[in-house]
């Protein structure tokens, strides 16, 4: 059983689409309109920005780690060293078509404030995150009695940068209180494939290992 789980997770980590891009990034990129102005918050080594640039997108990035930033800038990407929790406030309203937070939400101090800034700065916000409601994670806590520890979430609890995990269910609630309208949502299973669309939310919350949400401001 455990080795089977391990195998699944390794497969998910290795799940890369054609061209070698991470599948969750491909999902995110698929939600962005051609030629859009995009801000990628927590852009890491710039993989998503590179992918987007091949699709005619005018991309900018913010990255916390100095190594990540310097790597991005050396690749010719427009990336600034900054912190999602503090620096989004400096961006004017409606500066971008899309503001993307890819696998970073769980590492922010104030996810709600960050999401609200994203919705203010961009016409759309795209958020991808690991789903803490996934059955394997539930199993580790419920039966193992310890914090989940997987290939996707490799840190021990005491050195993890991830301080605000949430499930798909939790995230929908955040959207509700932040005035976000869910335009599109995708859950990816352990193999990086989409969980079938026609399923209810509780099913996604149980079998989606990652989730990607495209949001807009709720009007009125």
């Amino acid at each position, binding site marked *: 059983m455990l080795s089977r789980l391990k195998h699944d997770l390794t497969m998910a980590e290795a799940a890369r689409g054609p061209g070698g891009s991470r599948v969750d990034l491909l999902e995110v990129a698929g939600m962005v309109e051609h030629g859009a102005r995009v801000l990628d918050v927590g852009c890491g080594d710039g993989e998503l920005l590179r992918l987007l640039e091949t699709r005619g997108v005018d991309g900018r990035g913010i990255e916390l780690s100095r190594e990540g930033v310097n790597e*991005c*800038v050396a690749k010719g990407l427009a990336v*600034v060293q900054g912190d999602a929790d503090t620096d989004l406030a400096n961006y004017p309203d409606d500066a971008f078509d899309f503001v993307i937070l890819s696998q970073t939400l769980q590492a922010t101090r104030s996810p709600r404030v960050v999401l609200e800034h994203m919705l203010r700065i961009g016409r759309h916000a795209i958020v991808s995150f690991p789903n803490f409601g996934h059955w394997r994670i539930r199993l580790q806590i419920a039966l193992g009695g310890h914090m989940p520890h997987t290939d996707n979430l490799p840190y021990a609890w005491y050195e993890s940068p991830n301080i605000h995990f949430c499930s798909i269910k939790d995230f929908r609630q955040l959207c509700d209180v932040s005035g976000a309208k869910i335009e599109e949502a995708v859950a990816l299973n352990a193999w990086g494939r989409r969980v079938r669309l026609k399923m209810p939310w509780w099913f996604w919350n149980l079998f989606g290992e990652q989730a990607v949400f495209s949001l807009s401001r709720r009007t009125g």
Partner: protein
Amino acid sequence: MAEVSATLDLADRKREADHPHSPVVRFPAGEPLRLDAGIDFSPLQIAYQTYGTLNVERSNAVLVCHALTGDQHVVNRHPVTGKSGWWETMVGPGRAIDTERYFVICPNVVGGCMGSSGPASTNPATGTPWGLDFPVITVRDMVRAQAMLLDHLGIDSLFAVAGGSLGGMQVLQWAASYPERVFAALPIATSTRHSAQNIAFHEVGRQAVMADPDWRGGRYFAEGTNPRRGLAVARMGAHITYLSDAALHRKFGRRFQDRDNPTFSFDADFQVESYLRHQGSSFVERFDANSYLYLTRAMDYFDLAADYDGVVAKGFRGTPTRFCVISFTSDWLFPTSEARAIVQALNAAGARVSFAEVTTDKGHDAFLLDEPELFTIVSGFLEGAARARGLKPARG
């Protein structure tokens, strides 16, 4: 004997101010430089160096702006000191600013002393050096003069403008004044305004120069003196601000200079003292004391926001220029917080901006030194910009 060598120094420098060892453009009286001080300055002279070849499309020109005590001799032997150029780590064949690919232009700033009009230049009305009759100039005046030079050279648009410190101020001013002429901007270790602390340091330097009896109210050329002690002290003080506590400690610690014990005198017992004295005395051989006053003043006056209702972002609104702002972790003269302020303003203006902070203990001077991370960032940024501009890769 000392008097003779001082006179020789002055004669050398005087000649360099009027007839430099580099190409020079002398603008006719009908083409004055309009100064922020409200004066039409004429005749204007600009000395400059170029490296590499301008392409047929005239699209590969990179303007390098030098810092306070720099000059146009970026990568060639200095005509006065005989030392190598001040940015040989950054500029040259195969370097980050690749002269195989880009046509690099570096003018001496107005107010300088290496061939562009400055206080050491001859005032045609009197036949003697301008001295303090030279009008006070600003960073914007420097940039305006550079634009006149580029017009003269037939270069409408710059692929990039790059510079550190005062050079970085010029870069920002270029992007604000002539956004359509600047494709990419690289302001390094700089700020949109000179801080109170930095103005204070400059004032100490100026007072040191003016307190030297040999300064003679700025008329030392006419009186055959040279305020070398004052200028050396100014340089020593300034030099400390270009370094860092960590770098000084690493280089010198508390080590003694050529002795094992303190001499119980005011000799340069410590290596760091000896080093500073050397920095001071070698500086006065190549730099004009009045130029030092004028250029520090220009930096003090620099406040980009003042031209745009107090909001820097207004100066860059809708700018087509792409920026790469760089700071250094140990630079306390132009700390990273200043770079962040530039980035915030550019973001607010919707500009395409990159910002990187380079880890180093070498302080403000790091932009002139061997910092591989800096070179990777600059070459990567320029490479991306070159792709966007459609510049061909370097031959070979």
